[in-house]
């Protein structure tokens, strides 16, 4: 038996999934090494973004007392951006119980990793895992730039690109249809300006979901999150849309920032940091093999993202926790093969993680085939409706309604309308059945 450079569990990647996994193992008194390629946990990570309170409490029960949080989100806004106009829906809830907080990954992930270290996780930074060591079909360790480390179990939390999952054959090449390219700008603004512009008090936050605008008809969404004294604005658009439309992601964002409904929100702001990242969007139909002998895959590396609800870090944390609980059982039974590790997948299937992904398994197919209408034609039509409804021009209202209804059938092939309706029903049925 190898004893040198050998530990019980190695976790590759210090994001929410990896940290949740490592700290759960350490709390059970087992030895765990968390390997992060960045200078510190979070230094390679980007999201919108907000973390969710309840799932984060599952890993760090008292995180609200000491974690670097920006604002507690109390407003959710949905804006359908036309070329120049927009229709917005706002949901506001001043409930004491937080659902989510805006955070910066560079600060929050680092805080989580510090906490994990206090609880016994051995954190190794600035180290790239280049390959996995496989012995007789079983993963038994990792190769880094400097040396090899061995473990009973390796957990891959190495993010959306997960080169390691591909190297050991647990995942096929990713298709441009299954990832979104996200670009984001953090823009410095006075706290008072943010409070005024977004109708907030101190420490209260607002989340914007932006449809259309420069992305009209493309499968992509924009976002705005408020931080203490800055605003994060960005978008994610599926990679195939960029390829097919030959557009640059940051140019799409520039256009969104210039939209008449958005520009006043960020006026006179100063760019603090530009960033970009991929979002795994493929969902249930694109999951890799989640386990094999000696190895489990968690978080973005396993494509665990619920794109409709903008949930990712929560699926990451919970998958990390389930992988840890499975690893702890394997360590007790001293069996690190798929026989035991398959329980990780069972745990995911019994939880909201795979239940939710399964609920939305047809979403991406429908959206890919109908995004020109669902994210182009209809949002524009809703704006046109309100333009008609709010206009005062001495034309009788009945005539206006009739003209509007006629326009729906005139500017759109009836067959396309039937397809839209059919796809919508198909989607609703797949969600509710």
């Amino acid at each position: 038996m190898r004893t040198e450079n050998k530990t019980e569990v190695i976790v590759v990647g210090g994001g929410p999934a990896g940290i949740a996994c490592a700290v759960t193992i350490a709390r059970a008194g087992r030895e765990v090494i968390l390997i992060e390629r960045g200078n510190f946990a979070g230094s390679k990570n980007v999201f919108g973004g907000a973390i969710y309170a309840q799932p984060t409490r599952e890993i760090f029960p008292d995180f609200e007392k000491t974690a670097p949080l920006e604002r507690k989100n109390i407003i959710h806004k949905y804006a359908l951006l036309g070329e120049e106009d927009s229709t917005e829906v706002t949901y506001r809830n001043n409930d004491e119980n937080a659902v989510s907080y805006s955070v910066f990954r560079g600060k929050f992930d680092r805080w989580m990793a510090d906490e994990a270290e206090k609880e016994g996780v051995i954190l190794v930074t600035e180290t790239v895992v280049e390959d996995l060591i496989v012995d007789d079909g079983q993963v038994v360790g990792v190769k880094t730039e400097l040396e090899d480390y061995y473990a009973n179990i390796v957990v891959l939390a190495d993010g959306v690109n997960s080169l390691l999952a591909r190297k050991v054959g647990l995942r096929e090449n990713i298709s441009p249809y299954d990832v979104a390219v996200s670009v984001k700008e953090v823009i410095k603004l006075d706290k008072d300006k943010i409070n005024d512009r977004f109708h907030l008090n101190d420490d209260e936050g607002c989340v914007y979901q932006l449809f259309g605008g420069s992305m009209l008809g493309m499968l992509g969404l924009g976002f705005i999150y408020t931080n203490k004294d800055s605003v994060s604005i960005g978008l994610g658009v599926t990679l195939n849309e960029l390829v097919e439309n030959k557009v640059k992601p940051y140019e799409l964002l520039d256009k969104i920032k210039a939209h008449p409904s958005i520009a006043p929100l960020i006026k006179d702001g100063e760019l603090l940091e530009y960033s970009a990242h991929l979002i795994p969007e493929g969902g249930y139909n694109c999951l890799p093999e989640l386990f094999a002998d000696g190895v489990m895959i968690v978080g973005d590396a396993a494509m665990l993202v619920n794109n409709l609800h903008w949930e990712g870090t929560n699926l990451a944390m919970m998958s990390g926790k389930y992988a840890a609980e499975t690893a702890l059982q394997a360590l007790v039974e001293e069996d690190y093969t798929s026989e035991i590790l398959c329980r990780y997948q069972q745990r995911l299937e019994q939880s909201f993680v795979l239940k939710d992904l399964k609920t939305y398994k047809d979403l991406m197919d429908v959206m890919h085939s109908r995004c020109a209408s669902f994210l182009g034609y209809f949002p524009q039509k809703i704006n046109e409706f309100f333009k008609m409804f709010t206009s005062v021009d001495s034309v009788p209202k009945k005539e206006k309604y009739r003209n509007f209804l006629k326009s729906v059938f005139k500017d759109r092939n009836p067959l396309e309308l039937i397809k839209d309706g059919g796809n919508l029903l198909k989607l609703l049925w797949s969600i509710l059945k």
Partner: protein
Amino acid sequence: MSIDEKLFTVKSVPDNVSHLNPDENECRCCESKACTFVCPANVYEWDEENQKLIVNYENCLECGACRIACERQSLDWEYPKGTKGVKFKLG
């Protein structure tokens, strides 16, 4: 604001060798040259005169879009060494 000005806000420690290595022969046959527009950091430029892909790897934000978009799947894409590459302060 130009993309170069945006990239100026990103902290990064460049390596002296590229972690992005396209297969030049494949690039010459590539029709879409998708990497030259999907990249959020404008890393890739096509040099028409020399029929060569210019790779400004030091601007790379390590997202991986180019690797997946490469129509000929001929981009050797690796993470920069542990001490190198992008360092997001906020992210």
